[in-house]
């Protein structure tokens, strides 16, 4: 039986990827953030998962407005870094896990989550920046990845409640897989940020820590946060936080918090990292 050995939440700020790719992590602007990343890297290195299921959103890279899947699961053996309009990131290709991904697809659809199944897609900073945050710059990524792409660009995204329930279904699916893979579920995006229009730059540290507290202690309550509250309180792009609820759903009701760090600013974003395991 495969097992979920932990859950990681991690923002996916593109500028963090640029800082890694261009060797700027020691610069005064970035050094305080990357110091906070180090314990998360140590945790990941110690846990050394076989697979990460990375819940992220595509930012007009693999998907345009032509087709807008709410949940899309990546089944390929390999996913190339996407050209998002300024050339692909110089990071290794992402090795998939087709056998586990197909098992997830079958299990989740029969569990009434009507996924879009994707055999070919490039992955953008939403997926590759968390890998850089958690693994640094290895020549190849140290684990296989199953991408789960969530629409949060075209309103409305799925509700937090739906994402939480999907996480619970992912847990059931992983545990019904015949292999012995050790799986970390990563929920990415957030925390407070607004990248657009006259209110750009909004940061709400109190909201973000309240969200983390609720996510840890009372995920059912966190799952009931309506879209309007994210949009208003934490900025239009903070709605990515619904993806953290997928991660949380894959863990037990009671969890142990191993690590929490936040940092402002990383470009326009209050950046968060949270590591949880079953208690």
């Amino acid at each position: 039986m495969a097992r979920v050995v932990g859950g990681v939440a991690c923002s996916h700020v593109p500028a963090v990827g640029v800082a890694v790719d261009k060797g700027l992590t020691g610069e005064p602007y970035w050094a305080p953030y990357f110091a906070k990343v180090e314990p998360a890297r140590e945790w990941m290195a110690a846990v050394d998962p076989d697979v990460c299921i990375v819940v992220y959103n595509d930012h007009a890279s693999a998907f345009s407005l032509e087709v807008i899947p709410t949940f899309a699961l990546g089944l390929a053996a390999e996913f190339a870094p996407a050209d998002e309009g300024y050339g692909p990131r110089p990071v290794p290709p992402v090795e998939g896990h087709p056998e586990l991904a197909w098992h997830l697809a079958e299990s989740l659809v029969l569990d009434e989550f009507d996924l879009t199944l994707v055999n070919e897609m490039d992955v953008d900073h939403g997926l590759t920046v968390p890998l850089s945050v958690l693994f640094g710059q290895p020549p190849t990524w140290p684990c296989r990845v199953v991408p789960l792409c969530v629409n949060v660009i075209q309103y409305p995204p799925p509700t937090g409640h739906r994402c939480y329930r999907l996480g619970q279904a992912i847990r059931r699916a992983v545990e019904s897989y015949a292999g012995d893979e050790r799986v970390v579920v990563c929920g990415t995006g957030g925390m407070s940020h607004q990248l657009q229009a006259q209110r750009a730059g909004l940061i709400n540290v109190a909201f973000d820590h309240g969200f983390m507290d609720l996510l840890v202690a009372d995920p059912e309550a966190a799952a009931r946060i309506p879209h309007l509250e994210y949009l208003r309180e934490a900025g239009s792009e903070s709605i990515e936080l619904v993806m953290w609820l997928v991660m949380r759903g894959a863990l037990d009701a009671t969890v142990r918090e191993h690590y929490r760090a936040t940092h402002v600013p990383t470009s326009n974003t209050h950046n968060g990292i949270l590591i949880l395991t079953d208690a």
Partner: protein
Amino acid sequence: MRDYDDIPGTYVFDGRRSRQGYPLNQFLMSLNRAENREAFRDDEAAYLDRFPLLPEQREAVLQRQWLRLLDVGGNLYYTYKLAACDGMSFQELAAEQTGMTPEAYAEMMLSGGRPIDGNRSRSEWQTSGSADGGGG
């Protein structure tokens, strides 16, 4: 009027905006390909002829009216592809849309960002005399 239309200075990319902005966002999406970026840089007007843009969308692109691009249906992430084509960072695009200088915006972020108090509702902006927000 939808509940989120009350949030000041914010364009929620809902179905209304997506319908309005479809040809514009299709153009912006095309900039993901290096050869298209090159063709656009070579002759912007000719490249835009490939897309059935509304006149106001075409004008906003050619004149790099960054906030107006949202107003004519551009999605933020798609709009960034045009900014990136011009060598701008995400933070520079955001600053342009607020009307602040890049330096003032960067300083605001270093100081912890734009606070939530006073920025929840359009009514707060009206009473404080701030510029009217997007949306609506």
